[in-house]
């Protein structure tokens, strides 16, 4: 897919840069050939050719080094999007000749292609972790002690981490669990009213910090692995868990240690995982693995079941909806994968220069 998208960048680079140079010099015979009228103001026509040539050059730079050109892709998307939109406007509302419609369709198609390329290129490290890769850990002594750090509102995260714990222990790790606690009583489950749920929701959407109680873990602890667990709250990290990282006093707990991320959610895990991994990295941790799991069940009942669960404070309620409601806890298959994830973390290789480079 990478090769195809990159090749498509080269195609538009040649078409834009080459085509516009040709148009600038041969517009009269070309427009005559397709039966289009000559431009009404030549200077605007020349400006457009110059602009389009520049976008072609930009696409060529993306082709040369796509991974370092993500910002250029954004500019190309905006440029091509505007061109396509304005072409559509003048074609449909001002009787622009059909010849120009081809350029609008071309650029519109490239908006989609470039957005897909951007999605492909974004956060490649997370893509590797999502593929189940366990990265080499930091060199140095490993007392084989792990700390599990979690904030579980409904118990789903706790169940997930217990399986990671079992996997670690099976491979000789001694494991300590540390439950993160929110300072505010608002973050308790059941919420105790729809109003409180709304407050939690809006705070999650607008990322209003939710402070966590001090961890009480010294920076010179002897854990060689920390596994942090988080749930998705409205597409992002659960407030109190993010609060742990928003307090710089806690960064020493993660600094210079191997760390792993576990995310549990209804369905959307990518942003939460990205947030957790980046917070761990900013705190100085060396991320060696990430695992994210969604609750079982088909949509849209999975979403509505979650709302009922959060509203009533208990699964499978209201009872009259019976079998329509989906489970609110990870299924056994996911828990087994978390066990295997714990085992893989315990067996993570040591970093060598070659391994680190490969990672």
């Amino acid at each position, binding site marked *: 897919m990478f090769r195809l998208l990159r090749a498509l960048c080269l195609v538009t680079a040649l078409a834009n840069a080459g085509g516009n140079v040709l148009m600038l010099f041969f517009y009269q015979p070309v427009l005559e050939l397709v039966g289009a009228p000559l431009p009404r103001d030549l200077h605007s026509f020349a400006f457009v050719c110059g602009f389009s040539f520049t976008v072609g050059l930009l696409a060529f730079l993306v082709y040369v080094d796509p991974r370092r050109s993500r910002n250029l892709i954004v500019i190309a998307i905006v440029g091509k999007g505007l061109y396509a939109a304005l072409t559509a406007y003048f074609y449909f509302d001002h009787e622009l000749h059909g010849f120009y419609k081809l350029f609008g369709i071309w650029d*519109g198609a490239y908006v989609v292609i470039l957005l897909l390329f951007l*999605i492909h290129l974004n956060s490649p490290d*997370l893509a590797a972790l999502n593929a189940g890769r366990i990265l080499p850990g930091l060199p140095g002594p490993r007392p084989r002690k792990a700390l599990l750090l979690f904030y579980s509102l409904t118990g789903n995260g706790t169940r997930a981490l217990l399986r990671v714990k079992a996997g670690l222990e099976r491979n000789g790790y001694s494991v300590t669990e540390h439950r993160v606690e929110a300072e505010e009583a608002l973050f308790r489950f059941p919420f105790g009213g729809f109003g409180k749920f709304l407050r939690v929701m809006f705070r999650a*959407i607008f990322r209003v910090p939710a402070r966590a109680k001090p961890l009480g873990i010294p920076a010179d602890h002897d854990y060689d692995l920390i596994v942090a667990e988080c749930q998705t709250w409205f*597409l992002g990290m659960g407030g109190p868990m993010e609060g742990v990282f928003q307090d710089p006093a806690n960064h020493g707990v993660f600094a210079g240690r191997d760390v792993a991320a576990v995310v549990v959610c209804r369905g959307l895990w*990518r942003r939460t995982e990205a947030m957790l991994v980046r917070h761990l990295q900013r705190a100085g941790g060396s991320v060696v693995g990430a695992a994210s799991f969604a609750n079982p069940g088909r949509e*849209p009942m999975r*979403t*509505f079941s979650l709302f009922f669960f959060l509203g009533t404070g208990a699964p499978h309620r209201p009872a009259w909806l019976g079998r329509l409601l989906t489970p609110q806890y990870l299924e056994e298959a996911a828990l087994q994968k978390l066990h295997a994830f714990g085992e893989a973390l315990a067996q993570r290789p040591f970093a060598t220069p070659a391994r680190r480079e490969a990672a």
Partner: protein
Amino acid sequence: MDRIGERIGSFIDGADWAMLEAVWRHMSLPPGRLGPALALLAAVIVVCELVRIALCTEHVTSRVAHVTVCLLTFPLQSIFLAVVLVHAAAAHPGRGFINLGIALGAYALWLVTGQATKLVRRPSEGADLGFMCVGALITFPVGIVAALVY
């Protein structure tokens, strides 16, 4: 002071809103010129979904980025389609249920677009059918009421 006011007034009077007026006109899903209207709806739906997924793993500490991702998950598209349905029903009475079919098509396109991103990024979430259905609870009741009223 009056001259400055006059200048500002003439400046505003001289503004060309034709482009926005055209967008609003196309949002009324005119029966005679449905092609550009459908292209507009499709462009909004596709771009919103792709931007959401592209932003998903980026700018993770940015509040603006997070609110944007939240809006693009379903409210923005759902409200946009609801506005289109009301505007279209009011502008061209008697076509409310045809417009509902168009909105359904937009939702199908939304789903396909999200799922298509799995081709370029795997594993990925793709479209979120759950939140899309929450969005449908905004769009379609509004559309049905508009269809019945006009």
